[in-house]
């Protein structure tokens, strides 16, 4: 189908976006890369009265920027820019690895990091990676600015912690400490994965721990902590964790038990690979 009629606004500053969202509230949608919003409009799953196209904001960078111990992703940093970024490759190797699993090149060329986060799809890669890397979501509106920890940002499937009138101006990710690995299983490269996992292994000797976040395994990606057992114990420890913490859905794509099986196998693969990089 085709998008329903709406009033189109193309602001040039972040402050103008604030004003438009304050004026139109829930009846307005922010259009960034459009790779989630436009399909929703095409299907008429949403019919916002106002579309606020932020693609022509002046003074926005398309590049991730490293400063003060974090890498900042402004609201118009495309996924393809993050994929090509030397800063991301150097400072956030886990993100660099995972981003190649986000849809396809022709989607990543338009889709933004912040847009994928705002969309809050529990089957998407970026929310899980951000939770593991302890990212912060920088929100703003006419009421001011605030930062929200990624682990608190995702509140349900396609639901986030933004208040009416708030939008994401930036994502900040602390420089990665420890070794990461990303694994997922999808029927076709770039499709939504049946299950996926981002893992980060950090610490020395007996205090080595893995932090994991799954995608496709429940309503929101959650950070799960796992004391690092010996290599033999990884699958067993994960089986217990998956059983206790995750509630995957049973649907036409896969049964819940198969998703749990994938979660154990992929999680073990990711943790082993991250751990193999050696203690720091």
């Amino acid at each position, binding site marked *: 189908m*085709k*998008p329903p*009629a709406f*009033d189109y606004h193309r602001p040039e500053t972040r402050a103008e976006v604030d004003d438009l969202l304050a004026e139109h509230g829930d009846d307005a949608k922010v259009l960034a890369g459009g790779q989630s919003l436009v399909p929703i409009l095409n299907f008429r799953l949403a019919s916002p009265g106002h579309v606020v*196209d932020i*693609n022509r904001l002046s003074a926005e960078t398309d590049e991730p920027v490293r400063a003060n111990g974090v890498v900042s992703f402004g609201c118009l940093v495309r996924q*393809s820019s993050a994929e090509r970024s030397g800063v991301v490759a150097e400072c956030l190797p886990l993100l660099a690895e995972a981003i190649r699993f986000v*849809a396809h090149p*022709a*989607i990543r060329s338009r889709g933004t990091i912040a847009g994928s986060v705002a969309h809050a799809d529990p089957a998407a890669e970026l929310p899980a990676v951000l939770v593991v890397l302890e990212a912060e979501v920088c929100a703003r509106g006419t009421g001011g600015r605030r930062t929200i920890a990624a682990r608190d940002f995702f509140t349900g499937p396609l639901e986030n912690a933004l208040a009416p009138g708030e939008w994401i101006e930036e994502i900040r990710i602390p420089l990665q400490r420890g070794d990461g690995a990303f694994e997922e299983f999808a029927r076709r490269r770039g499709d939504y994965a049946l299950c996926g996992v981002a893992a980060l292994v950090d610490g020395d000797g007996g205090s080595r721990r893995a932090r994991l976040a799954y995608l496709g395994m429940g309503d929101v990606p959650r950070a799960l902590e796992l004391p690092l057992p010996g290599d033999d114990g990884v699958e067993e420890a994960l089986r217990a964790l998956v059983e206790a913490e995750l509630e995957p859905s049973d649907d036409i794509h896969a049964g819940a038990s198969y998703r749990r099986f994938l979660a154990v196998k992929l999680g073990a693969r990711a943790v082993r690979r991250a751990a193999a990089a050696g203690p720091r």
Partner: protein
Amino acid sequence: MREVGRGERTRIALTVNGEPHEIEVEARWLLSDVLRHGLGLTGTHVGCEHGVCGCCTVLIDGHPARSCLMLAIQAEGARIETVEGLAQDGRLHPLQESFVRSHGLQCGFCTPGFLMGALSLLAEAEGMSDAEVRDAIGGQLCRCTGYKGIVDAIRRAPAVERERTR
């Protein structure tokens, strides 16, 4: 700030296959529809209209993107390339000719998307494994050929190009 009310039409300028165009659009119109119905460039096909099939892939300022996932008004001032821009002076682009030779198409519905999506691969295509090519074209669906011919066509395209310059 650019503002267009619902139902209202506005004039936008954009470049398609090197030719400047000015056209009236509603804000809600998709780039894919404006290319097809506004400019008569029906080579860009529309399959699923939600970014899954890849048939509507075009180059926007040099990068492959889904024209069904972009409003035409967002392409204001952009440089668009469609499948119609590939052949030059009646001669098929090497990638197109390679698709013909390797039977990379059957019904042809998905072909424009495959061609536009694969253009950026040509520099490295020969050295890519089957798995790598399949990975790179994972964003395109074909329901006829089973992909073997398509993979071969992409990998052999640089050889077709060399033949011409010899």
